[in-house]
């Protein structure tokens, strides 16, 4: 299986078993309060960090690639094909294969996450750049804007809605896929879920609370991006 962070406790994270906990009732607030700072919060922070780093790097690469294929149309096909192929690799498979290369390190976790965000972001950025009405481009050139100026002052701002839409999808997907990363090691909110699942009697409260945090994290990022869009895109 995967390597755990230390000797596995027989009843992990149960802490001082209250009646609720030992009885494995549907949801025990006491447990949540007690273990917020040692279990839930650190994993939440890890999860958030992983997501942000992966999407940021994925975005940087996708952006560079999109600009390249915007200039040289011929590049688009090959890039799209490679992207499509990457997307077909199931996340579990990707993580396992990468373990062979970089062990149980952050790299193993990040590379597939970066790959998947890249694959989502690239087509969106390209589509955004292509969505600029040709009349606008013609007017911009005719007015004497240089190529670089047309890109930064006209094309990119107009591509923003599509880019942000892509970011939303990428971020939400990454939050979800990052839970699988827990199979590589103690990283992210997938880990508490995973541990709680493997018990002879799966521990409901831990699963539900970690799960709720995952969903909440995704929602929070999504709302943040929506707010960003509203702030930046004022013309529609």
């Amino acid at each position, binding site marked *: *299986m*995967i*390597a755990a962070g230390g000797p596995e406790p027989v009843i992990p994270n149960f802490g001082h078993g209250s009646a609720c906990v030992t009885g494995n009732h549907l949801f025990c607030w006491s447990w949540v309060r007690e273990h917020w700072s040692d279990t839930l919060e650190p994993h939440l922070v890890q999860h958030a960090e992983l997501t942000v780093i992966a999407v940021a790097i994925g975005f940087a690469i996708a952006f560079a690639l999109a600009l390249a294929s915007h200039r040289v149309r011929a590049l688009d096909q090959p890039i799209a094909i490679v992207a499509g192929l990457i*997307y*077909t*690799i*199931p996340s*579990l*498979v990707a993580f*396992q*294969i990468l*373990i*062979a*290369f970089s*062990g*149980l390190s952050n790299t193993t976790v990040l590379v597939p996450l970066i790959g998947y965000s890249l694959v989502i972001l690239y087509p969106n950025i390209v589509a955004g750049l292509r969505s600029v009405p040709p009349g606008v481009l013609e007017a911009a050139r005719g007015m004497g804007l240089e190529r670089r100026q047309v890109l930064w002052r006209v094309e990119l701002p107009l591509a923003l809605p599509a880019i942000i839409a892509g970011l939303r*999808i990428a971020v*939400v*997907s990454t*939050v*979800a*896929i*990052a*839970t*699988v990363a*827990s*199979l590589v090691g103690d990283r992210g909110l*997938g880990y508490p*879920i*995973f541990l*709680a*699942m*493997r018990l002879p009697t*799966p521990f*409901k409260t831990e*699963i*539900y609370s970690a*799960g709720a945090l*995952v*969903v909440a994290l*995704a929602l929070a990022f999504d709302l943040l991006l929506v707010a960003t869009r509203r702030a930046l895109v004022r013309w529609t």
Partner: protein
Amino acid sequence: MILLDTANAHTFLEGFRFIGDHPGFLAHKALEQLELSGAALGIGAAVALPVGVALGHLHRGSTVAIGASIVGRALPSILLIAIFLTILGIGFVNNMVALAVLATGPVLTNAYAGVDGVDRDVTDAARGMGMSRLQMLARVELPLALPLLFTGIRVAAVTVVATAPIAAIAGGGGLGDVIVNQASYRLQGVLGACYCVMALSAGVWLALLALQRFVTSEGTTRRVAGTT
């Protein structure tokens, strides 16, 4: 800590060797996975298709339909599996249900988009000719929506097949049993099983694509929008 085999190009080839050495075993596992996936897809589609088609026909509930896919993307498969594990216990059923939930997203969204997107002129003409709603659905809307419907099913199928390995941690069986068990099967085995999963996904995609081509008539090939 488990000692991991360090990788090089050789190791990747070892994965193929593993497949060669244990064809029966892997085939059995693959079959298990297909069973699970098939059942999940079946249930998911059985639920999502009617709902999607109905909503599309009535041209309502677009937020629900689009939202289904978004939620599907956002819900981590592990979470779904874990939740149903707690509700339904360990075994086949809980994983089937969890994967079925995953499958509904693409199917519903595409079913909706397919039926909703049928050219209004065409449906107006059908109504004008005196077709009842049911007749219009069966003879006009569904045939025209078939490409998108099928694509939704294809996407759902591949999603399910590709996610099924994770179910192994909740007793789902299939190739996932090997993939999450590097201790027993070594890196070779894991890689071999990984290749099999990818081959399975591709195979399912192509098989359904062939089926789609066979089933849809020529006049209805349209630009496919759908998820992914």
